[in-house]
């Protein structure tokens, strides 16, 4: 997922402008629909999930931040969006990835499942990240990488853990995110207006979509990721 510091109105306006600018060259544009509903209903509006480029994006108000999700069948790819929105709005944006390692190795290994990853990227008004930390199974080999100067709140000792896969656990990422005054892992945080609804915008790409896109159901996507 992505987090963009700013109001829903400003983020949505800039995101839609950017998307329409770049998509025009492909015979595409976006249509926007305002959402005031339960969180689960908002997520369901991302379906069907797309195999190929994303076709739907969801912007949800999250206090002074906006949470970003897309309808990729493998989960949101927020790195590019976070970088561009941070640059366009001269603000802070964060890319978060937390994925359980559910891949099987060796003979007879299943093609279902997913490679584990905990990735934290902070962009501050620039396309290049101010700070990135990643601990991930990169297709069969665990890697730990960090770039940029550490924030004062970071637990640098954790990065020296003997086992590579333990150097950046999800709880640490969650702690780091809280330092920015946002709690994307709490459902309640999305209901900040106390009117029983989350507030957001669904941005859908329409027009001459790539013919290579295929769609999968949420159930099929979850099964492929080893979540069921």
């Amino acid at each position: 997922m992505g987090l963009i510091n700013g109001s829903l109105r400003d983020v949505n306006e800039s995101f839609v402008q950017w998307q329409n600018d770049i998509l025009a060259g492909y015979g595409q544009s976006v249509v926007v629909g305002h959402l005031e509903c339960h969180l689960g209903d908002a997520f369901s509006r991302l379906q069907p999930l797309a195999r190929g480029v994303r076709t739907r994006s969801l912007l949800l108000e999250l206090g002074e931040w906006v949470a970003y999700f897309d309808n990729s069948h493998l989960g949101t790819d927020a790195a590019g969006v976070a970088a561009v929105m941070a640059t366009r709005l001269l603000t802070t944006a964060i890319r978060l990835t937390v994925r359980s390692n559910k891949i099987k190795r060796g003979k007879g290994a299943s093609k279902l499942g997913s490679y584990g990853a905990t990735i934290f990227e902070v962009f501050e008004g620039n396309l290049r990240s101010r700070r990135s930390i990643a601990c991930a199974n990169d297709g069969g080999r665990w890697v730990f990488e960090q770039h940029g100067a550490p924030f004062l709140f970071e637990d640098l000792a954790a990065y020296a853990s003997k086992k590579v896969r333990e150097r950046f656990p999800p709880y640490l990422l969650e702690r780091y995110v809280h330092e920015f005054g946002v709690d994307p892992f709490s459902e309640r945080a999305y209901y900040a207006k106390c009117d029983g609804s989350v507030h957001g915008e669904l941005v859908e790409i329409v027009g001459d979509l790539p013919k290579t896109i295929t769609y999968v159901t949420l159930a099929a996507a979850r099964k492929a990721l080893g979540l069921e």
Partner: protein
Amino acid sequence: MVSDNPETFADLDGHGVAPAVCGAGGIACKNETISSTINNAADNHPIITQIILGVVITVGTEGIGDIIDAAAGGGELIEASSATTTDAASAGTSTEGGASATGRLPQDVSVNPKAPDPLPTDRPVSNSPTQNNAAQSEVARMKQEGYQDIRVNQQQVNAARERVGVGRPDVQGTSPGGVREYHEFDRSTSTRGAGHAARAMANDPSGKVFLHTVD
């Protein structure tokens, strides 16, 4: 600068990069008549001068040098030079043994299609700051133009986000039009580019490969 005038195109017999590409990736070479399709260029890419679907073009600062048919191996190869004229003839001496009938290597054919997540793109592609800067410029372009699943120095993944090879393109990403692009950055003295391009194209026939020469 590349001319639009077909008469200026040299060496239509597929010399230069062609033998290396053919040998490495099983891509057939043939004479190709250049028609008005040469003007159907660009795909909004700032570096690439000309693109013809299904045809490989090597581009140097002195113009188009060699053209081969990429259709047999699939994909599209565009070679661009931002610094010096590309000497396609000296490129691609690498050999990739054991290729299948489709030009794919056994280790690529057998790879689990499940793709890992894209890592942060600050990763280096080389020990050369020049090549790394060029790669980061490409990453920045992709971000600004709305590309998705951008990867730097990670295993090859196609537009459907399936892992299709264990080779590691320097930069890869998918355009909003759904086309997967692979970008390689090499010095003019490097001989690896054509081999890498052939392998990437064999693994993803619908993708486009861009070879950049940076010195």
